[in-house]
């Protein structure tokens, strides 16, 4: 009874790896197309006046106009700079603290309850104090972005740091390394890829705070543009701003992923 038909052999394509990539991409595109379609349809159907709920076509047109006629690129650049600067500062503070908290129990016990509570603090509530201390310029906006993300970063960096397998620590110990060297060459180095992943995720939180930061003493930036647009009820411009933030976010996400892949090949080649 062994016939050829029983051997269920599906047809094979020339390059299955490529096909796999294409299908991943295709399905993602499908999701987006579906979303855009639903949006377009909702905008056409009269759920809300056009002016307040423009369709994707209108929004894209507005975005084009913003870029070509209103120097929106400068705003985008200003916002990007703010996000990157603030995030770098947040990391510069959170990394040593989180690393020490994750590595040393004493530090953890002293700082954890503090950082744990500070995490809940609503960043917008700090605006008056920041304005007073840092003025209306760049520093204040950046400080707000830092506050919005830093306590989460500290807690999560500490969590990540605690994941270092004991065997690596003990190996280094029995090889005679002093503790401060273990901190750097084992704990930090082992956790680095996980940190990068964490940064990727937390950068998204930073982007969500951008609008809040740029509304205060707004001069330039995507948030300031959206603020101006609101004054004239230009919802299409507001949505164009949202769109740009989403795209930038995805772009940085992709960059972080690429960095991860390049810097830590040993985590991707299994």
């Amino acid at each position, binding site marked *: 009874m062994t016939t050829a038909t029983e051997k269920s052999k599906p047809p094979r394509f020339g390059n299955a790896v490529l096909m796999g990539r294409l299908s991943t991409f295709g399905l993602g595109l499908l999701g987006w197309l579906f979303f855009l379609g639903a949006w377009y349809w909702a905008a056409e159907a009269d759920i*809300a*006046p056009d*002016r*307040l709920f423009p369709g994707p076509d209108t929004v894209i047109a507005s975005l084009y106009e913003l870029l070509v006629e209103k120097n929106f690129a400068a705003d985008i650049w200003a916002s990007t700079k703010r996000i990157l600067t603030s995030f770098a500062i947040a990391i510069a503070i959170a990394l040593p603290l989180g690393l020490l908290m994750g590595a040393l129990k004493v530090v953890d016990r002293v700082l954890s309850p503090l950082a744990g509570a500070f995490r809940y603090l609503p960043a917008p509530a700090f*605006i*008056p*104090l*920041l*304005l*007073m*201390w*840092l*003025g*209306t*310029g760049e520093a204040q906006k950046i400080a707000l972005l830092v506050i919005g993300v830093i306590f989460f970063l500290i807690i999560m960096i500490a969590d990540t740091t605690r994941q270092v397998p004991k065997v690596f620590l003990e190996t280094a110990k029995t090889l005679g390394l002093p503790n401060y060297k273990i901190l750097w060459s084992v704990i930090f180095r082992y956790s680095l890829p996980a940190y990068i992943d964490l940064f990727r995720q937390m950068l998204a939180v930073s982007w969500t705070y951008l609008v809040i930061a740029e509304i*205060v*003493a*707004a*001069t330039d930036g995507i948030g300031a543009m959206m603020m101006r647009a*609101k*004054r*004239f*009820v*230009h*919802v299409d411009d507001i949505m164009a701003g949202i769109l740009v933030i989403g795209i930038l976010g995805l772009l940085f996400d992709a960059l972080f992923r690429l960095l991860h892949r390049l810097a830590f090949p040993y985590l991707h080649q299994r």
Partner: protein
Amino acid sequence: SEPVKLSLFSWPGYGFWFIAKEKGLTEGLELDISIIEDPYQSFGLMTAGALHATSSTAEYGPIAADKDVGIKLVTYTNPSYGTDKIILAPGITAAEQLKGETVAVLEGGLTQIFMAEWLTDNGVDISEVNFTNLIMDDAVGAMVGGTAAAAEFWEPFGSQVLEAMPEATVAADSTQEKYITTALLGDALYMATEFLESRPEDAAKLTRAYFNAVDFWKANPTEGNKIIAKGLNFNVADVEQVLGKDGEILKGGIFVFDRKQAAIFMGLKPGTLPLNIASDGMKAHWDITTDWWLKFGFIDKRMPMEAGVDTTPLAKAL
């Protein structure tokens, strides 16, 4: 009929709506009052039909007309009589010294025009200072922290700043003749164009309700203030600081128009107004704000007043 949705931001001068509602002065019109702190949010909602009326500062007419936002100014409701001040940081004594300095204003608000007028009058061009856009709540911090060399405040922010920085000085305020006679600084009642067109009778009733409330307040200032305080969740003292205790014009606060005074200012009736405020002053007001919005680049062209002001409900309310 359907309830009327209206909004205001937390400021005693807009509290009369609570009196109208609580005292049943609306001729059966049901009021649905929301506190929306950002007036632009309210304007947006009005164009969407989600809101019918709002009380806000009196500068949005030309912008609405130019940007084709479906909103009309229905009546001017009160000038500021001292509640608005320009405060200079310690060490600054003259407008000259502000050249190159940072000045905090609410961009696109009357306070920006106030500041600009004062600077121009004192020989400083608006291009010579750096305007920074701050809502008043935030401007206090900037001023006290030493970032802003000058700023415009209304109460209670002005007195907060003076209390925190005793050496700061008041350079101008809205009691000064130039500002009070034109009623440059003040508030207004706006309605959605669509509402005005589809429910003209309700628009008239709503206008009437507002002035009924003002009448009630003038007759019973203590009770009126209490109702306003409760509606806004403020202390009575904070309300009294702006409206006064006796229903009269409050120097250092505001001058609440009754319906007749409003009609005179809007050009619907002949007559004279206290404090030498110009009769039929709305036209001049429209022109001044339009001039400045053109200069600041917020609007592209001069619109006739009829494009942004609709006095029909006020006329019916008289």
